[in-house]
């Protein structure tokens, strides 16, 4: 892949801190524009400086409000630069999306030290969009110290965010007791830190105990992740949360866990890219979609297993043919 002058110029502008250029590079990534993959090959070696925090949790837990509060805290405590990616679901019917997280972050809109970008899932499941990691890379290239990735409001087992970030924060709020039940198998196990938000409301203490109980049941001898109580609205507990996040990352940087996780994350990104390409290869380029329609219209077996085996055989035959040619 060769990097053109246009790409190189845009990448240089991003690297020198040009937010408008970053916004455009993000659009290339979201559109799966080939120029992004080419540009990425040119800057990937310089990535890895930014800390990536995943903020996940059920709808209405206060993720966006907390992201704003954390950003405001860090801007005043140590003036670090920040990037925010806020993901909301696309409608499976219209393909459109209402990206509403920004409304809760209006206090950040005039601070050039905070770059906020909203993303729609565009058909991806798992709480993030296909290009979320790419956009985080652009924020990294832009020189942001810390990147916060807000997932869609998740219910049960969406854990993509774990494979996209250095640290996963699960935000819960009083009244989400049922959610803990529902999350037993998924996120509850994957989070590195639990935030009980809305401590200004009644029952926050009870939620802390419920979480502690759930964790004791499941973790066995694994280290129990911290549970931090905050109010994103009043600001209570925020300095402690910010400190805990920084400390966790320092510890994991020192003991090598961060490096291992980042390696795993990169491998999983590569797998996803290959998966997507293989799917296109099979269904579009090798014509399996047409083959499927043909076979289902014809007489004969309607066993899904037999049909799948037939399609795979046809795919392999075509691949071999092209290999010979």
């Amino acid at each position: 892949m060769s990097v053109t002058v246009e790409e190189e110029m845009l990448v240089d502008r991003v690297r020198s801190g040009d937010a408008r250029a970053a916004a455009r590079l993000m659009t290339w990534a979201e559109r799966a524009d080939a120029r992004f993959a080419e540009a990425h090959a040119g800057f990937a070696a310089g990535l890895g400086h930014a800390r990536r925090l995943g903020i996940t949790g059920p709808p209405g837990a206060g993720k966006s409000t907390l992201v704003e509060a954390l950003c405001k805290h860090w801007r005043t405590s140590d003036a670090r630069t920040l990037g925010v990616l806020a993901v909301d679901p696309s409608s499976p019917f219209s393909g459109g999306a209402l990206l509403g997280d920004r409304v809760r972050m209006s206090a950040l809109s005039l601070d050039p030290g905070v770059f906020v970008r909203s993303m729609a899932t565009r058909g991806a499941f798992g709480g993030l969009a296909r290009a979320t990691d790419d956009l985080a890379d652009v924020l990294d290239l832009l020189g942001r110290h810390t990147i916060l990735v807000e997932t869609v409001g998740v219910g049960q087992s969406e854990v993509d965010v774990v494979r996209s970030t250095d640290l996963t924060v699960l935000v819960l709020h009083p009244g989400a007791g049922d959610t803990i039940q529902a999350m037993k198998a998924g996120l509850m196990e994957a989070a590195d830190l639990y935030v009980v938000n809305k401590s200004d409301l009644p029952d926050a203490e009870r939620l802390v105990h419920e979480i502690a109980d759930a964790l004791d049941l499941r973790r066995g001898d694994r280290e129990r992740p911290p549970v931090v109580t905050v109010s994103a609205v009043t600001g209570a507990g925020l300095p402690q949360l910010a400190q805990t996040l920084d400390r966790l990352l320092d510890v994991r940087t020192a003991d090598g866990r961060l490096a291992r996780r980042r390696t795993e994350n990169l491998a999983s990104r590569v797998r996803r890219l290959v998966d997507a390409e293989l799917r296109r290869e099979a269904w579009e380029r090798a014509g399996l979609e047409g083959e499927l329609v043909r076979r289902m219209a014809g007489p004969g077996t309607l066993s899904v297993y037999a049909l799948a085996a037939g399609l795979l055989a046809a795919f392999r035959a075509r691949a071999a043919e092209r290999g010979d040619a």
Partner: protein
Amino acid sequence: MQPPIRVLVAKPGLDGHDRGAKVVAAALRDAGMEVVYGGLHATPEAIVEMALQEDVEVVGLSILSGAHMTLFPKVRRLLDEAGADDVLLTGGGIIPKADMDALARSGVGRLFGPGASLDELATYIRGEVERRRSAARSA
């Protein structure tokens, strides 16, 4: 396949509620667009900053306060100064016909009164964005 159209919808000014802007945002989503909702009371500076970070192709403002003759030109000017002169600025509110015409002459896109249909708005946006995209491709 065409990438989805990204639109920023906001309601600048100090007056009241944002029901109108929310209805517009939902209608554009149902028309297949990705709508960044910028909320109430945003200043022109904040609106332009959001538009740049989100790299939207369209900014739609809902203005009921009567301040349309200052707000639309201000947002247009700030967008142009930031190099985002290719971003379509449109919107609606209670705006007299004469004002709409005057604004159109100053580089603001078509504006829609309270009686206008949301389909019409979506169709207008789609048409304008397609025109701009193909102009950019052939540039």
